[in-house]
C-alpha cells in the first residue's frame, strides 16, 4: 500500500508540534505533504495521558481535573461485546461548546483509548471501534465550556481483544 516509511520518529514529533515545515526540508516528499495538516492542528499528541494505566490518572493528565456524570452525555455501547477486538462504541451529547471527547476502558493495560478534538462547527458526535481486554467500564468524557462531563457503561467481554 502507499504507507511510507521515513523512519524518523523525531521528525514526526516535530510535525506534531507544528514546527515541521522548516525542519522537514529534504526529509521526504510525503512527510512534507503531511506537515500542513498536523501543523494546523497546533496540538500536541497527549503521550503522557496515553501511558497512564488508570482511567483517573489518564483524565488527570489530559485535563488536570475530574469529570461529573451527566445525563446529557449519551454513550452507546453493546451489553456484551461479540469480540473484544472490535467493540463499536459511540457518543453524542446535547451539551454546548464541546471542545473534546475522550474514550476510556478502565481495565485495558492503558485506560485511555482515544481523544477527539472538536473545533467549532463540528458536531459533538463520534463513533469508533475499540479493543477491550476484558469486561469493564467504558467511560466517555466530554469537555464542554471548559468543564468535564462523563457517562459510563459496563461492557461484558467474553473474548478479550488483547489477541488482536
Amino acid at each position, binding site marked *: 500500500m502507499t504507507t511510507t516509511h521515513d523512519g524518523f520518529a523525531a521528525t514526526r514529533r516535530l510535525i506534531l508540534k507544528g514546527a515541521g515545515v522548516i525542519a522537514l526540508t529534504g526529509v521526504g516528499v510525503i512527510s512534507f505533504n503531511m506537515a500542513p495538516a498536523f501543523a494546523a492542528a497546533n496540538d500536541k499528541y497527549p503521550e503522557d495521558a496515553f501511558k497512564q494505566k488508570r482511567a483517573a490518572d489518564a483524565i488527570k493528565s489530559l485535563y488536570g481535573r475530574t469529570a461529573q456524570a451527566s445525563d446529557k452525555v449519551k454513550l452507546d455501547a*453493546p*451489553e*456484551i*461485546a*461479540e*469480540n473484544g*477486538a*472490535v*467493540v*463499536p462504541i*459511540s457518543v453524542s451529547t446535547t451539551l454546548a461548546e464541546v471542545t473534546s471527547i475522550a474514550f476510556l476502558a478502565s481495565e485495558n493495560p492503558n485506560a485511555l483509548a482515544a481523544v477527539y478534538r472538536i473545533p467549532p462547527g463540528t458536531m459533538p458526535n463520534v*463513533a469508533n*471501534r475499540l479493543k477491550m481486554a476484558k469486561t469493564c467500564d467504558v467511560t466517555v468524557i466530554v469537555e464542554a465550556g471548559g468543564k468535564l462531563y462523563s457517562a459510563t457503561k459496563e461492557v461484558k467481554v*467474553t*473474548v478479550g481483544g488483547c*489477541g*488482536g
Partner: protein
Amino acid sequence: MNLRSPIHLASATLALALATITPTVAADTPDPMAEAKAFRNYFVAKFPNVKPEDFVNGPYSMNKDMRRQWEEKEQFPPYEFSLDMGKEMFGKPFKNGKSYADCFPNQGIGIRQNYPSFDAKEGKVITLELALNRCREANGELPLSYVGDEMAALTAYMAFTSRGKPFDIKIPDDPRALEAYQNGKRYFYTRRGQLNFSCATCHVQNPGERMRAEILAPALGILNAMPIYRSEWGGMGTISRRLVTCNSQIRAVPLEPQADEYRDLEYYLSYVSNGLPISGPGSRP
C-alpha cells in the same frame, strides 16, 4: 466499491417452498431434494421468528445485541480492504496474458452460487477454491494456499459479485454425484475429535446457543456467507480455513484442505441451502 449490504438481503423476496416434512426414506438411498426440504423445515420450525433468508447471516439472525454490533460494523465493514485486494487480484492478468475470467462462465462474475459443482469427467466435486487454483495452474501459476489471505480475498470478491443470488447447486443424474452428496452428509453428522462432536452437534442441535463465548451459527445458510472476516482472525478466511479450524476446535486432526471429505461436505451443505441468497463476504466475531 459500492457495498450491497447483506442486511438488505434479508428483505429479498424469495419463493421458499416450506412444505411439510416428507416421509422417511432409507438412509442408504438418499433423496437430496426431500432431505434439503426437511433440513430447512427443521431450522424454520426451531426459529419461527427468523426469516428463512436471514439464516445466511448466521449468529446475527438470532441475537439482537450482536446484530446491532454487526449492523454498526457493516456501515463500513473491516473486510473492505480484503474485498478490494480480491478485485485487484481477479483483474490482474497472469504472466501468459490470460486471467481468472478466462477460466469461468460469465468471466467469473456472479457465479459463486453455482459452486461447488460436480465434474462429470473427473467424477468429483469441484469447489470454487479448487477451481481457482486449477485455473492458476492451467495458466502456469503456482497455486495459492487454501487457508491464506489471497484465496480468501479472491473468493470474497467472487462472492461479492454474486450477493443476493440464490445457491443453485446441482446434483446431476450420476451415481458418483449422489455418492459425493451422501459422503458429505455422513461427514456432517459423524462425531469426531476428543470432544466427540459432529458438525451437526454445534450447527444443527445448538445454533443460537453460546459455546464458550461464541454464538453458534445455524448450518442452514452457513456457507452462503463465506468467505468470512472474523474479528478473532482480524482478517478474511476461506471455507477451507473455517473447516480446518472447526476440526481443531473439537480436537480432531484436520484433513488437508480440499480433501475429498471437505469437498463433499461443502457439496452437501451448499445443496441443502439451495434457494438461500449468497451473502458473502460475511463478518463474524
